């Protein structure tokens, strides 16, 4: 059982709600039941009927008074990396198994104020470290298109919940591809906006200079109101931006830009994208890219060309170096960010210990999973005296060079960049258990946007794998603050294709 299929989009469901053809409470009640009885028992880490119903009633009150916005009454859910009052926030870690935050993340707060109804907290990789959702302390997740396969990660629960039709939108975070990759694997649309446009306040920090909250939904059109509502300056996050190239960073910015681009495209006749230069990095199509993915992306590019866009070959020569740079910087920041999980003030404390140092050691060793411990060790090492210059500083230099490459391409050669999201389709669960860095290499196409802080999204553009059942994603990377254009382009593509309408239900 899923959400009512006669309302496949936020716009259509929102209209039904505003016209009172369906109430938010009815919808929430059905959705809660669906979430509970969903195929994957590990998908939700915490559901609380009372909390959800309370939000639904508040939404109904707004709808009743005619004060509803586009998101009022819309069922969503949050990645368990966003702290929430009421629902537990675990970051999918034993460390925080019973943790309840005394405050809501800004993103959670803004979506609630817009009238969305949250079904609860979605599993993810522990502390957002992973690309398969196998690192959750509370059970690996299934890909709705194939239960034997991973949904991707770290926002795997978010992608799976949307793909399974349990929610119309789900928040995610993306530090190295954690929104885009699961979106690609689960056949949904997901966007990571420009670093600094969405508040990190209340997002449990993994790699602060790379972490950016994003959102996943069925289509680009659905992403617009969600991202627009989430974004905006927040004085509680010092890296939050007050303005984006002269435009105030506030709700309305992305929607307005999106609408303007959409209008422009609709005025351009049969060649709506005429003049658009799409940069295609040759490094994104090297060995390691599965042929079926290359083919799907190529077909998508041809759709854009048919709509009038111009394809430009570009080069991002440091693409491969983004991987080691990322896997130095992210663990370095993580090693420090996760130091607070020591059993002293909150979270898990080991039951038996000798002294304070032993208590901290045991609490961390017992409650943090292997991938988290590995990254903490790597991060501690690269920041240590004598290694800092060779690793951390060197990685920062590479980061700057990668940024220069992207900047130059977007300044001089093209308006946006397109390519694959992942080298292949979702793998089987457990396939990489003996190869600790195989997943790290899989992040090759997504890391750049995080290192540079650029907005990037993933939309479905094909199918591959056995019986061509597994979704393939197309990545679109834009200039800083160009979320509106990215979403308008993705929407344009989705108006001419139906990959985004392919749901697991049709195959099972």
């Amino acid at each position, binding site marked *: 059982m899923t959400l009512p299929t006669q309302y496949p989009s936020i716009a259509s469901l929102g209209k039904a709600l505003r016209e009172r053809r369906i109430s938010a409470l009815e919808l929430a009640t059905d959705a809660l039941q669906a979430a509970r009885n969903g195929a994957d028992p590990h998908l939700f880490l915490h559901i609380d009927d009372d909390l959800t119903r309370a939000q639904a009633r508040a939404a109904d009150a707004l709808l009743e008074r005619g004060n509803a916005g586009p998101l009022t009454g819309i069922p969503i859910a949050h990645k368990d990396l966003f702290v929430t009052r009421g629902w537990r926030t675990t970051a999918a870690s034993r460390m925080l198994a019973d943790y309840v935050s005394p405050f809501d*993340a800004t993103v959670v707060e803004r979506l609630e104020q817009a009238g969305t109804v949250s079904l609860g907290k979605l599993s993810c990789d522990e502390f957002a470290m992973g690309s398969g959702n196998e690192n959750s302390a509370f059970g690996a997740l299934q890909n709705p298109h194939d239960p034997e396969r991973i949904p991707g990660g770290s926002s795997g629960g978010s992608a799976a919940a949307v793909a399974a039709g349990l929610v119309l939108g789900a928040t995610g975070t993306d530090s190295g591809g954690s929104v885009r990759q699961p979106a690609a694997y689960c056949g949904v649309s997901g966007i990571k906006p420009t670093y600094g446009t969405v508040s990190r306040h209340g997002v*449990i*920090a993994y790699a602060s200079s790379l972490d950016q909250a994003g959102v996943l939904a069925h289509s680009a059109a659905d992403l617009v109101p969600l991202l627009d509502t989430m974004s905006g300056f927040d004085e509680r996050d010092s890296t939050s931006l007050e303005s984006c190239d002269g435009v105030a960073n506030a709700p309305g910015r992305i929607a307005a830009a999106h609408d303007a681009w959409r209008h422009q495209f609709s005025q351009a006749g049969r060649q709506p994208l005429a003049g658009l230069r799409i940069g295609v990095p040759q490094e994104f199509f090297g060995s390691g890219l599965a042929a079926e993915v290359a083919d799907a992306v190529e077909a998508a590019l041809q759709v854009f060309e048919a709509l009038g866009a111009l394809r430009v070959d570009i080069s991002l020569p440091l693409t491969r170096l983004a991987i080691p740079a990322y896997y130095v910087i992210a663990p370095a920041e993580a090693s420090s960010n996760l130091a*607070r999980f020591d059993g002293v003030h909150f979270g898990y404390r080991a039951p038996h210990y000798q002294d304070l140092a032993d208590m901290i050691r045991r609490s961390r060793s017992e409650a943090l999973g292997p991938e988290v411990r590995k990254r903490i060790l790597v991060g501690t090492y690269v920041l240590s005296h004598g290694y*800092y210059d060779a690793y951390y500083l060197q990685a920062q230099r590479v980061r700057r060079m990668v940024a220069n490459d992207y900047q130059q391409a977007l300044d001089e050669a093209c308006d946006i960049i397109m390519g694959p999201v992942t080298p292949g389709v979702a793998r089987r669960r457990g396939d990489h258990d003996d190869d600790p860095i195989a997943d790290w290499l899989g992040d090759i196409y997504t890391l750049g946007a995080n290192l540079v802080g650029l907005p990037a999204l993933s939309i479905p553009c094909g199918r591959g794998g056995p019986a061509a059942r597994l979704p393939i994603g197309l990545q679109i990377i834009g200039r800083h603050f160009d979320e509106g254009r990215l979403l308008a382009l993705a929407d344009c593509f989705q108006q001419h294709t139906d990959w985004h309408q392919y749901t697991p239900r049709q195959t099972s």
Partner: protein
Amino acid sequence: MSWETVIGLEVHAQLSTQSKIFSRSSTRFGAAPNTQASVVDMALPGTLPVMNHGAVERAICFGLAVGARVAERSIFARKNYFYPDLPKNYQISQFEHPIVIGGQLKFLLDDQEHVIRLTRAHLEEDAGKSLHEHFTGPHGESSSGIDLNRAGTPLLEIVSEPEMRSAAQAVAYARALHALVVWLGICDGNMQEGSFRVDANVSVRPRGQAEFGTRCEIKNLNSFRFLERAILHEARRQIELIEDGGTVIQETRLYDAELDETRSMRSKEDAHDYRYFPDPDLPPLVLSPEWIAAVRATMPELPASRQARFQAEFGLGAYDAAQLTMHRSTADYFESCAAGLPAGQAKQAANWILGELGAALNRADIGIAESPVPPDALAGLIRRITDGTISNKLAREVFTAMWSGECNGRADDIIAARGLQQITDSGAIETLVDQVLEAHPQIIEEYRAGKDKAFNSLVGQVMKAARGKANPQQVNTLLRQKLGG
């Protein structure tokens, strides 16, 4: 062999902001444990630091006051180490790029001007406090408690060059620095509450040797007396160690005031690797020239300039001017008192402030800003001395009455109520003189017999009869006339 002590000081001055450096909780001292700890101070998941501009402005103010370079761009870094009263297990500090670079501090010691250069000053957050009492942990085990009220309190760490050569000089430097930060209003200077804490780096070397010896750092000295004793003790320990054939090892030591000795806290070998790196949660601190100029515009006149001005404008001597500019509140008091006096009488104000008033404040253990005798009232008293209404001796009586609030502390009303005006009416004085002469014929005889002391005795009798109010000059003249005539 003759030894020279080399000292550098690191001072942690708590900045006088209402709220913490990265959160909005109060910095008030003495609240019940953990009542001033926000989610940011507790480092709860999802919290982020937000810079307190007041702390930045105080750091700018300090940099300008010591003639340092105020960095237009400084960087916050994380200093990583596990400690239970440090909830994030890293301290946000500044490392490679501090906000204040260089500068110098001038002070007087034994009438000599000393100049000590500063290395830097940087902003950082304080840690919480462990409470080693009996608490119970989540598994029923016995446990320490932690009070996070102090966690996140803004500190300015002020580092000097190793240019001091004696404990006395180090204390004079520390006192001057203390006076300056209090003068600037950026620190309350309360050493008992830990608002001004000193770490001393001490080494010794044979006099004449260019290279420094190996240093030891003595942590957390919270009084000038302890600072002096700790340095003296530590220098002696190092000299004895070397003279006995040993070598000083670089280490951190604690001063035990009860035993008057330092002891090892940790050596360089088990020193932390702090793994400093730029804090990704805080963008570089960029100071615009406008911001710096705005801070400069609100700064008080600095003590050195004020001292010079007091000498030039009020004709004070160097000593008085220096004493009056030790504290801004004293200087302010003096200036408003002098403003109520005719030109040329400011010296009287200085005498009273440094004398009678200072003593009374000391006895009452209060600051001059809390003086029950405000500066305009003191000026009112001084005016009555200089215009001859009361004698200096009676002025003390009037001051005491003012201090206790008699007649709303107004000198004129007290003088009137107590009838303390000097009697200058020569007729009235003459009557008194005649009465005394009549009553004491034997003293007159003694005087006539050549005893000079007898004359003073007669003056005393007249003054006694006048209850101290007769003009002594007039009494003298009249008595001589009557006796000699």
